[in-house]
């Protein structure tokens, strides 16, 4: 059975597909995150899973806007989500600059035992992505960046 909802959502059996085309601005990333969260809530995804998904998708999409498109508005990128019973499969595709060295940043945790003035104000994004995802992969194909990963669902209501 196929059913349609807002913003390119398709239902097939127990699986759901969501897709978003997002403008290369932080404001449009925010709007996409709000739409996705509403849709996942409607589909009955547990609050703690939606929280993790929102954090990961925010970091991935902000990276595309900031690094692949260098914060220049006027470009677009695609987000494709496949929700199954125990996993959210995600794919982010953009036409921006490749990842440096064609590899994913390591996303190491910071040393926080430092002077106040030396505390990091950035570089948390890839660390959060790596903490909350599994099977994280990156490929550069036909001048497009493809970032793929899964977010395991805990179904925890907390």
């Amino acid at each position, binding site marked *: 059975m196929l059913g349609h909802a807002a913003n390119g959502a398709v239902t097939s059996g127990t699986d759901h597909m969501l897709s978003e085309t997002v403008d290369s*601005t932080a404001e449009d*990333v925010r709007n996409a995150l709000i739409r996705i969260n509403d849709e996942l809530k409607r589909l009955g995804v547990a609050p703690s899973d939606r929280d993790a998904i929102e954090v990961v998708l925010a970091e991935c999409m902000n990276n595309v806007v900031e690094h692949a498109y260098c914060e220049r508005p006027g470009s677009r990128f695609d987000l494709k989500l496949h929700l199954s019973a125990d996993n959210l499969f995600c794919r982010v595709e953009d036409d921006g600059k490749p990842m440096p060295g064609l590899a994913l940043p390591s996303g190491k945790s*910071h040393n926080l035992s430092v002077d*106040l003035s030396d505390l990091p104000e950035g570089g948390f994004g890839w660390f*959060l992505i790596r903490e909350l995802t599994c099977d994280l992969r990156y490929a550069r194909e036909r001048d497009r960046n493809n970032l793929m990963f899964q977010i395991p669902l805990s179904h925890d209501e*907390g």
Partner: protein
Amino acid sequence: MDFETVRQDDILKITVLAERIDAACAVQFKDCIREICGNEPKRVVLDLQKVDFLDSSGLGAVVAAMKFLGKDRQLELAGLSDKVSRVFRLTRMDSVFTIHPTADAAMSASAA
């Protein structure tokens, strides 16, 4: 970006009225906090109870606010939702800040 401020003795409580501290408003957030805090007071309590979502840019902006206050003044956090507190916990930034369950608890607590 909207904030509500309450001054009580040498404590300034800043309630963030925005629902999100994210990449779209992180720079504005930093600028506003600097302007609101100025050169005083000793303790600043940032009440995040209305904030539903914070990303790594927002986290960086909160860290920047603490650095702006310097060593002689204190930035304390209050009212973190589960979602917001998870980002602090995962990045271990919860070990860097004094975090109170509520702004009221922060206001009645003596300086950390």
